[in-house]
């Protein structure tokens, strides 16, 4: 077990290095220099060069990458080209709202997808099964930005129930009810998507498979109540592999958060990522990319590990 953990952690190092290296080179191969965006266009070439030197952009690319990694190991993501503040500080300021959004959306997709999947498996081909399958299917196919606009048309413009922009009413400080109202639509948009459909389908097909196993027939023939058979015997076994799905859903949530935050003007890291990409704020783009990739790698690793913990058949060496 300890060896397995160690090996996985060691494997993650080249993956993360590869990810950061590829993104670093792609970003810096862009024609034109971000220094050009920072100096007055009418200024003389000398001040442009001074700006390039100040940003470290005059060095060869591999040297720049090496310096970036060394600084990162000290926990320093550099300073934003946009406002000159440390990138880490900017990210930390905004990451909590993104995490809140993602966690709430995850709960929504989990708490709807799994029970629906169970019901559908238990009553396969019933009306409920068809309706729930259609519901999950629609979620899988909805373009999230369009779904967001439709919700806005309905709940903001037509009905006037929910605010469409930001996370709090202007001029009002933090207020739990106000915050909740602002987050309802973004959470629905992010939660009702690929992840929900994934959990639903997975639970349904996994339950259908487990229900046919011999030990379920045994449990039934012992005269156990159907409830006990389904929820105690079948469900436990059917849901185990779902743990790995939780880790795999992370990249989707990141992409979703980027779009959702943009549509609803939520000041999280998704919106920050978009702004940074548009303004060529390299250090910020690199930081968000690295953090997101690290979370994805860590999420997959933890999912595999948790799977091994709950399923004694799986042995790590």
């Amino acid at each position: 077990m300890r060896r397995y953990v160690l090996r996985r952690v060691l494997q993650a190092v080249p993956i993360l290095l590869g990810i950061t290296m590829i993104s670093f080179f792609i970003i810096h191969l862009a024609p034109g220099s971000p220094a050009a965006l920072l100096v007055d266009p009418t200024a003389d070439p000398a001040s442009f060069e001074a700006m390039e030197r100040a940003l470290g952009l005059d060095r060869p690319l591999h040297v720049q990458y090496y310096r970036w990694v060394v600084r990162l190991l000290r926990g320093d993501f550099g300073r934003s080209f946009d406002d000159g503040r440390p990138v880490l500080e900017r990210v930390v300021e905004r990451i909590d709202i993104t995490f809140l959004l993602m966690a709430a959306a995850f709960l929504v997709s989990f708490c709807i997808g799994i029970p629906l999947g169970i019901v559908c498996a238990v009553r396969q081909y019933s009306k409920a099964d068809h309706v729930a399958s259609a519901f999950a299917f629609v979620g899988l196919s909805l373009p999230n930005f369009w779904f967001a606009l439709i919700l806005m048309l309905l709940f903001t413009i037509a009905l006037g129930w929910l605010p469409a922009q930001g996370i709090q009413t202007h001029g009002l400080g933090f207020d739990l009810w106000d915050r909740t109202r602002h987050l309802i639509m973004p959470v629905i948009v992010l939660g009702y998507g690929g992840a929900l459909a994934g959990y639903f389908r997975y639970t349904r097909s996994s339950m259908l498979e487990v229900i046919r196993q011999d030990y379920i027939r045994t449990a039934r023939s012992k005269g156990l109540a159907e409830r006990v058979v389904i929820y105690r015997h079948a469900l436990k076994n059917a849901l185990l592999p779902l743990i790995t799905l939780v880790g795999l859903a992370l990249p989707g949530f990141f992409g979703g958060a980027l779009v959702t935050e943009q549509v609803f003007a939520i000041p999280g890291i998704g919106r920050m990522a978009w702004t940074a990409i548009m303004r060529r704020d390299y250090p910020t783009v690199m930081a968000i990319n690295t953090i997101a990739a690290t979370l994805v790698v860590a999420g997959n690793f933890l999912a595999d590990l948790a799977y091994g913990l709950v399923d004694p058949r799986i042995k790590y060496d």
Partner: protein
Amino acid sequence: MARTMTLAEAERDLSWRAIFWSRFRRHRLAIAGLVVLVLLYAAAIFAPHLTAHSPYAIDLGNRLEPPCATHPMGTDFFGRDILTRVLFGARISLSVGFVAVGIMITAGTLIGAIAGFYGGWIDNVLMRFTDIVISFPALFLILTVVAVIGPSIFNIIATIGLISWPPVARLVRAAFLSLKEQDFTEAARALGAPDPKIIFRHILPNAMAPIIVAATLSVAGAILTESALSYLGLGVQPPTPSWGNMLFEGRDYIRRAWWYTVYPGLLIFVTVMSFNLVGDALRDALDPRLDH
């Protein structure tokens, strides 16, 4: 070299098709999806003949007109007919989906086939590379690359295709790992067939079913990605209409003109849904093991 089929082969061929069709047909929604897709492609191809308007003709006297007889989907901020732009937008959105998936399937199949067939260090290197690409938050990377190299249609297609192949590579590799151990592969090798021939003529055709399913479902994903890019302002650039950039333009007028955003988005939704339905039915029809 042409050769005639034996009766047995013809029978087997027929029954295979019959089985496939009878399984596919059970999914009535997938048939509907197929019909919708055929109609959409026809509409995209014949777009200039289906409408009296030009997708670029500006008519400032008729800005933001609600749907009416002359403009069934209304007009946009420049007075352009939205139905016309949706039809011409279908050309962009549908071809982006197809070409991107073509690139993605080609790359994924090549990498997966080579990794699975040769194994050893080649497999190791290719799969670690796959691990790296799959760990990127895809939309974020695609946005970054497109922002860097410029949002032309070609760049968007290439970027989507070159970033989304890893799941296909894993799928093809898994299929190759089991197929290369089978007798027919051994027989081909014993007969002295060169590696490329074994890979492409003998093993690959047997691994096609999951690839076809993945390709169909990926077209849906690619169309969604392209429209998300366009919506974020980094997709197909105006005035060329794409469903995504029409939404991007329309959101500023959402309070005044609902039709501006509702119709283009509806088209994306219906198209993606159709591809998903067809892909799902294909999975069921091509893979008898998943018989529920």
